[in-house]
């Protein structure tokens, strides 16, 4: 097994920041808001590895910084400090040292992202098929016939009715919008996929189908994934390893079954004990 992503000391602070920010925030301080300068320490010193074909869970309550982690790696938000190395076959990229054009290239060609809010991942002014075409065009596939065929194959794979390929996403149900988003993210067959609360807010049967689809894709394409969720059931079903976050810090990391059955940190114990 080979490493695909290595994240070291990833940090992100919103606001001016001051020398006391780090020591006055975190799980012990019970806040992520610095009392001295009012900055929000969204994440501090987050490190983890991801191997090819592996699914890593990032769990924690809202405000724990879990989404900030994937947004930083996907170049949605620049981190304040830290590094991330992406190993792509024989090359390695220091993500935050790349210029904007290279970052955009990686994002379009080698990464995929599925957001909780489909408005962030989909263009609502163009059709479902058009959304996929848009991503293929960005990754230099120019042939109309090839794009059309690939869009249809992806939508069929994610169980979106082909008769609706030319419909606008706003006319789709929430579960279908998520499936179009997954199809779009997979269009370039990325080796690395980020999933941010993809099934949150969907009804249970729809949620089950989305999770099912994600696992099938992982088996077929050997895509490495980072799954961000507060839902322990999703963590249990999808991930092999997990990290637990609170107030921007990683407080625990381990095999998923170990974290759920033998949690070490007081907060994780409380989290697991209060799950339904």
């Amino acid at each position, binding site marked *: *097994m080979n490493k695909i992503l290595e994240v070291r000391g990833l940090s992100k602070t919103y606001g001016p920041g001051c020398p006391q920010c780090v020591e006055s925030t975190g799980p012990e301080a019970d806040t992520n808001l610095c009392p001295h300068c009012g900055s929000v320490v969204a994440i501090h010193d987050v490190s983890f590895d991801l*191997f090819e074909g*592996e699914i890593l869970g990032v769990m924690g309550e809202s405000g724990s910084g879990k989404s900030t982690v994937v947004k930083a790696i996907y170049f949605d938000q620049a981190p304040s400090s830290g590094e991330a190395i992406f190993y792509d076959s024989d090359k390695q990229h220091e993500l935050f040292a790349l210029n904007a054009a290279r970052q955009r290239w990686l994002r379009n060609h080698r990464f995929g992202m599925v957001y909780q809010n489909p408005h962030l991942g989909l263009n609502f002014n163009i059709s479902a098929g058009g959304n996929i075409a848009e991503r293929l065009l960005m990754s230099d596939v120019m042939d109309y016939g090839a794009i059309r065929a690939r869009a249809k194959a992806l939508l069929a794979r994610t169980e979106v009715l082909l008769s609706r390929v030319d419909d606008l996403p706003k006319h789709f149900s929430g579960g279908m919008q998520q499936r179009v988003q997954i199809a779009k993210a997979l269009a370039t067959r990325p080796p690395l996929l980020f999933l941010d609360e993809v099934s949150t807010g969907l009804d249970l*049967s729809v949620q*089950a*189908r989305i*999770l*099912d689809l994600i*696992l099938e894709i992982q*088996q077929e394409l050997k895509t490495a994934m980072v799954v961000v969720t507060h839902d322990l059931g999703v963590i*249990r*079903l999808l991930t*092999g*390893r997990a990290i637990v976050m609170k107030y921007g810090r990683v407080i625990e990391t*381990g*095999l998923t*079954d*170990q974290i759920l*059955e*033998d949690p*070490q*940190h*007081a907060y994780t*114990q*409380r989290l697991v*004990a209060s799950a339904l």
Partner: protein
Amino acid sequence: MIPILQVEGYGKHFQLHEQNKLIPSSLNVSFTVRSGELTALIGPTGAGKSSVLKGIYRTYLPSAGRILYHDALGHELDMVLASEHQILELRRREIGFVTQFLHCLPRQATLDVVAQPLLGLGVSREEARQRAADLLSAMQLPERLWSVSPATFSGGERQRVNLARGFIAKPRLLLLDEPTASLDPATAECVIGLIEGLKAEGTAMLAIFHHPETTRRLADQVVELTSPPAVETLLKEEIMAPTLALLAAPTGGVASLGAALREAP
């Protein structure tokens, strides 16, 4: 027979932060498991039988001891110190665990649930499903159930699916936690036959059985566990230095230990 697993001085206790409690679960457990043999763990409820299995599989983080595993390539690995990826790799290739619970995807057909471990080893989907079908018919699970998710199954049916999934990849080491507990006598008999078959093919097994009779029939070796001693004794003998300091505090069971933990620096 060749030793595949050596457990030396395994110990496990749980530190419950919320209640300020230290719960002992296993203490100084040592034994050896060999290829082609079944080692049975026996002892009263609360003696920590499952805790030993979970500690080996890393579902629990061991608190003390060494768990030496000899892998297919002849390497020796202390599973207490092994990395998460090393453990995942061993789970994928060599070590199986059948518990009393079945966790699977909501929509997944039984045939795919059982075939799953083979897919992880690179077996093609058709072949994996074929072998799953063979195993399920050997276990007398009606064919009409194969395309349905096990979520709706009875306890006995579900347990058979669980066992089939544990058996299908023929792991080198198989951990079994009461595999025949919820089965009717005929099915239990069939499972016992499968266990004997795997043993004959060289799989090493470490098992907990509900019925003493099953243990008598299948076990080549029996390891008896006793309930872990009261917390005071446990501390003196076992737990690492920082906790030893707590012994200075007045003893008297878990509750006062909790108080001592609170006061500890």
